[in-house]
């Protein structure tokens, strides 16, 4: 089998296997898998509203995935996307409420504020890693908790003891009347264009600039890069800052697009953690992240329709979705078997 065929077959087979095993789980627990999957399908593509909401769900996943993937290319494991997203969320919402400016200044201002907040949040672990060799995984995890409770406290201060900042000014909103009209009031917003632009930006930085080359070189081999005369510490910090900026933008999508406010949270949103899976599914490439985000976002959103239309409990739905993603992530195993089969054929 040619490489090309294998490359196409692997994801197809893994999705099919995931669906089959998911179907077995539904059958065993006494639910109709066909009704379940058709509900999933309708939940994703059923009508314009569903499609709009699915894209809405994909938007922050794209950016969270980019964030994790970018740091990964420099050999850094950014688990702090969740925290960077939360500070970005708050920063965007705060700018959206506190200022009253014309749209063409206000909106970019709010978006940049979110990116800067996320970048600043990621700068700390980057700095500690570069200067003191503190492992970024530990620092970023802890920064998540600090972000959660700090933003909660800030929201309380901003809202005078309330739990919600209130709705942002229309001039900072990514809301789209046009999208609303064609998708039957879904929350689809212009943020998807920003997310896609960032995919391009990441590709450009990594593949077309010297900085990107250096970042990747540090990821491949720190010592060799240093020997070649690159400033490893600078690149580590830069990578974390850019990664954090992507995560902050994911927060801006929630603040300026989906929710239009920031509220006190009892726990993490989960988007940052799912971002890790999105990036890894996409092999840390910009194009791969699109694939991962589309898969994650669609399944996550479509799954909401399974209890709604097919009456399958949320718990079973979570298992089925996890199984599908599990099999997709296992693509390597399938590739292995396919290659083995090919080799045997050749041996004959």
């Amino acid at each position, binding site marked *: 089998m040619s490489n090309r065929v294998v490359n196409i077959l692997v994801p*197809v087979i893994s999705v*099919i296997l995931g669906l089959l095993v998911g179907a077995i789980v539904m059958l065993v627990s006494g639910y109709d898998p066909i009704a379940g999957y058709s509900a999933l399908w309708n939940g994703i593509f059923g009508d314009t509203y569903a499609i709009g909401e699915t894209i809405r769900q994909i938007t922050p996943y794209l950016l969270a995935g980019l964030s994790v993937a970018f740091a990964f290319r420099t050999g850094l494991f950014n688990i702090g996307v969740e925290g960077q997203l939360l500070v970005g969320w708050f920063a965007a919402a705060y700018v959206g409420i506190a200022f009253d400016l014309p749209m063409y200044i206000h909106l970019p201002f709010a978006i940049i504020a979110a990116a800067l907040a996320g970048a600043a949040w990621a700068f700390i672990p980057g700095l500690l890693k570069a200067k003191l060799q503190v492992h970024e995984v530990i620092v970023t995890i802890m920064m998540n908790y600090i972000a959660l409770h700090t933003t909660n406290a800030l929201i309380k201060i901003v809202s005078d003891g309330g*739990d919600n900042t209130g709705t942002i000014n229309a001039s900072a909103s990514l809301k789209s009347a046009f999208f609303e009209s064609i998708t039957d009031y879904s929350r689809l917003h212009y943020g998807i264009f920003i997310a896609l632009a960032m995919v391009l930006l990441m590709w450009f930085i990594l593949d077309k600039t010297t900085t990107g080359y250096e970042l990747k070189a540090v990821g491949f081999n720190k010592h060799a890069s240093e020997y070649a005369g690159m400033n490893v510490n600078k690149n580590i910090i830069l990578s974390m800052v850019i990664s954090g900026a992507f995560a902050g933008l994911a927060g801006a999508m929630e603040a300026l697009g*989906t929710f239009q406010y920031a*509220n*006190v*949270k*009892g726990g993490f949103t989960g988007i940052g953690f799912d971002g890790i899976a999105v990036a890894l599914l996409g092999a840390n490439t910009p194009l791969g992240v699109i694939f991962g985000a589309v898969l994650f976002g669609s399944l996550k959103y479509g799954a*909401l329709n399974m209890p709604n239309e097919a009456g399958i409990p949320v718990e079973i739905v979570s298992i089925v979705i996890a199984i599908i993603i599990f099999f997709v992530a296992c693509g390597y195993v399938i590739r292995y078997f396919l290659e083995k*089969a090919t080799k045997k054929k050749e041996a004959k």
Partner: protein
Amino acid sequence: MTKRKFGLGLSLVLAAGTILGACGTKDDDASTSTDSKGSGSEGTTEAVDFSLAMVTDVGGVDDKSFNQSAWEGIEAFGKENGLTKGDGGYDYLQSTSDADYITNLNNLVRRDFDIVYGIGFLMEEPIKTIAEQQPDAQLAIIDSIVDAPNVASVMFKEQEGSFLAGVAAALMSESKKIGFVGGMEIPVIERFEAGFLEGVKAVDPSIKVDVQYTGKFDDAALGKTTANRMYSSGVDIIFHAAGGTGNGVFAEAKERKTKDANANVWVIGVDSDQYAEGAVGDTNVTLTSMLKKVGTAVQNIAKETMDGKFPGGTTVTYGLAEEGVGLADSRGAIPQEILDQIDEYSKKIASGEITVPETVE
């Protein structure tokens, strides 16, 4: 060998293709099957032509507390009126994150339920949005006020019920140290705290109340460590208003009771009668529970709506006088003379002689 493997692979693809194919054409299939289900339920017994549904907050429908009591109210109403679960009857959807509220509410409105409830104050903004977008939908929200003509708001005077819980705790405490474990620090939970503190103070101002907020409604482990710290510091009664986190308070109390049958540890439950939560062998650590009859409120609104009197745009408040809050049967844990004292306070509050503050002074 390879051929067989390849054949297996092919048949797999074929099988999956069939399933996927079914997905594609399923669209109209699904709608017809649900239609037939709907007409079937209408045909049986003297079922009324009324349907209702609710969206839970992230606590889930089996949180043994707030969401669960709302769902039990809906179930009871459904059974009373010969409805079945599903389209045209009664149903619920669970939310797993904040972003799901709008989708879930929208899904239910689109399925033409006559009334859709948002359970919990977290649903405030989503209900507002849906109320604007779907002016024909009839919505209701518990624990928050949404000012829209098609939304009925339900509020509870948690402070009044909590006052009684405070009285009970103060009269029953031997160590004169009482604990309060709250979930998120939000107005609703602060009403619990304010009422509870006031009730304790009314009996004995010298009693110390240890107030702790966990910041979460769904973290039983956190509730357990908080309770552990409180009991270890000499607290003997803990009142929790923390949903699923409060299950950890029960777990800690039960653990202590199991180790030492004479341990003087008690829990006051919240929202539903949580007696079953506190069972340790033959004994029980549940002193009583502060009932918040969300189920009753849900049923009342459903009845009114069914009679064509949907209370949209209004706020109904349930206090002691309306029997919307109160204490659960203590099943012997509280002696009669103390119950009588609690009853006296209850009457005074219901008649307006005592007003319980909503916020902590």
